[in-house]
């Protein structure tokens, strides 16, 4: 269950974001062109002529500088503080949290946080990767095969299935909380509970109507002449799926992947309900549990380690992150 994407949204929201409003247009532009072109609009509110006016320059420049300062304080400040405090001894952080290494740095906190058997978030870090990978795999499998069946194979009952899938978009995630938990405890046909297994997170993640929506839309927009031509050449439905449709869908699969991985990384409530065993817990579940069991410096080091990886990923794949946020954020709840 990804709490982020399933929300009660009236039909108009989807049509607004999907076809009428800006993000959809934006998406097509992004997907069609490279990020650079998309990031550089032809012009904005302020014209070249405006920029030559003194009053404009005199007010806009300081406004921009002020904005930059605020962004540095708000965006970078807390992170820098965390990095500093991760290697500052507990008592220094408690007595003067804003001082810069009054008694020197203590790098051993980092290795304690990572390795120590009682804290050791190394295991939980791998679990987080594993949770994200599995959720991503299940979501991609369901979205591509389902999208293919709904948009291209189009069996008669497809419309009903599609309606049922999109209907779940209007059900807030919270409604699923308890019954889904019970399903995971006693899954149909299985003898065993899924509690404390990664499947408890992976499989519910696949039931993501937003993914199906994105993928069917994209598949629908593919030129059907290509499929007809491939069929004439003797390609069956499997071949069509694997060799033609999937390779053409890389852009949308990229978007679905980014969402899948980010959501898996962020989710707390659901994994905390179904993963009690530290051997399978991801970071988001483990960190609150150990916060009062371990020393503050080691805890802050654990927080810093948990943050640095997504930050690095963000800095490397910045364009992809921001594009996905611009497009998908509007449909998230």
């Amino acid at each position, binding site marked *: 269950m990804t709490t982020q994407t399933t929300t009660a949204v009236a039909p108009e929201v989807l049509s607004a974001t999907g076809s009428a409003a800006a993000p959809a247009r934006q998406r097509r532009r992004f997907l069609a062109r490279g990020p650079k072109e998309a990031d550089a609009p032809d012009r904005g509110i302020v014209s070249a002529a405006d920029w030559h006016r003194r009053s404009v320059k005199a007010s806009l420049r300081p406004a921009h500088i002020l904005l930059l300062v605020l962004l540095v304080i708000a965006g970078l400040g807390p992170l820098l503080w965390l990095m500093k405090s991760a290697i500052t001894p*507990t008592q220094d952080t408690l007595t003067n949290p804003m001082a810069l290494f009054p008694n020197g740095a203590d790098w051993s906190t980092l290795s304690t946080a990572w390795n120590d058997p009682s804290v050791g978030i190394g295991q939980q870090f791998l679990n987080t990767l594993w949770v994200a990978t599995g959720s991503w795999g299940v979501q991609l499998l369901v979205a591509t095969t389902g999208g293919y069946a709904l948009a291209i194979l189009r069996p008669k009952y497809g419309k009903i299935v599609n309606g049922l899938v999109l209907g779940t978009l209007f059900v807030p995630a919270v409604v699923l909380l308890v019954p889904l938990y019970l399903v995971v405890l006693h899954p149909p046909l299985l003898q065993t509970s899924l509690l404390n297994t990664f499947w408890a997170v992976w499989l519910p993640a696949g039931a993501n109507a937003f993914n199906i929506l994105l993928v069917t839309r994209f598949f629908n927009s593919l030129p059907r002449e290509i499929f007809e031509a491939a069929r004439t050449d003797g390609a069956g439905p499997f071949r069509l799926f694997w060799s033609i449709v999937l390779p053409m869908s890389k852009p949308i699969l990229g978007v679905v992947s980014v969402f899948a991985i980010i959501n898996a990384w962020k989710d707390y409530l659901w994994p905390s309900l179904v993963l009690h065993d530290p051997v399978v817990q991801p970071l988001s579940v483990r960190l609150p549990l150990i916060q009062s069991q371990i020393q503050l410096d080691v805890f802050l080091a654990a927080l810093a380690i948990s943050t640095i990886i997504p930050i690095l990923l963000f800095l490397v794949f910045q364009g992809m992150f921001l594009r996905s946020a611009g497009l998908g954020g509007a449909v998230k709840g």
Partner: protein
Amino acid sequence: MKSPRKAVIATVAIGAVLAALTGCSPAAAPDGKITITVASLIPGSSKDAFAAFYARVQQFEKAHKNITLKPVEYQWTGPTFASQLAGGTLPDVFNVPFTDSQSLLQAGQLADITADVKKLPYASKFNQNLLQVASKDGKIYGIPYGPYGYGISYNRALFTKAGLDPNKPPTTWDEVRADAKIISDKLHIAGFMQFTSGNTGGWALTAETYSRGGRMETVSGGKTTVTTDNPQTIASLQYLHDLRWVDNSVGSNFLLDWSGMNQYFGAGQTAMYPSGSDVLTSLVQQNNVDPKDYGLTVLPTEGADSGILAGGNVATVNVKASAEEKAAAVQWIDFYYMQKLTNQAQSVADAKILVGAKQPVGVPQLPIFDQKTLDTSLGWIDQYINVPKANVAPFQDGVFKLTIVPEPARHTQELYAALDSVVQAVLTDKNADITALLQGVNKKVQALVDADTY
């Protein structure tokens, strides 16, 4: 033809997944061998603590060749316990607090171990009041262990630093208040702190109420009445109110649960707090507290009917266990929880391992059988006791003379949860209406009590 096949494989992957999952059924045990899962330590315990636990496991397996133990990390908390119970993931041997064993056994969730317990040599010697927390109609569903009494934990180093004598801890609530003020003024830390969240606020408030002679629930004619608006509870809350709003000696964090408070104490941010007498084990395992700096005294008692709140844990067996598993489980409970009190050789073996692993030995506890049995067992391990006796003497010497009062019997956790919010209100709102808040708690919990079918 490669790609279609791959596609098929991808499509049926779900099926494979489900098939793989069904394969996870437990493997059949070889002849005569029994494997049981047992609760080990709480998550985040130190390497040393785990080493000590595993050493005991090995000794047990050596003595019981047909039993294999599978230890799993375990901590009783309301939410995790509920889902483990529902999900069937509880170990074969686990523990629950005194407050919860009755409702669990009445719901048929605890195994009846009467037959196996009766075989134990000390079966008839239990303090019957204690055994009662996990018995019904003459049947035994669990063995109580590690009972604690409520005391005040204090930091001896901070007492010294503030110019107070650590060997003379406060003996009345007024002295507690005075000492807290001195420490707070001199050291700019909290002199006294109070649990406030995760149901522990209500737990501590109940202990404070008992120490002044009040009760949270009274039973007459078989009917339980919730009486949190008794004068002693009001006095306890007014006392907290004055420490906060007149003296300002209780620090600035009023959202602390059990672990959070222990961490605060371990970091030297408070000099005193009311706690169970057994908290030192966790303070050492989790918070690096040095027993040399640790002091424990009884909760001051004043007025008629005053007493010490006592609680503890019950070692219980999973209701799903087979007869053989039940027998093995009781043997483990006997070995790990009981023999340190009843068997000299095992008591010494246990103490040796704990000392070797730098774990505290001699943490104050109340008797499960009688005081004499407890004293005898302490005599066996006298040379291994590493908690300075003088530091916990104020508690050990004081607790004899006091009445022991069990926790409220009905809907205890809900009662505590509702009281949490009252304690928080008093500490964060100068104008909180204590009586009105308590009447709200009465109404809420009374409704739960009245809705019970038993």
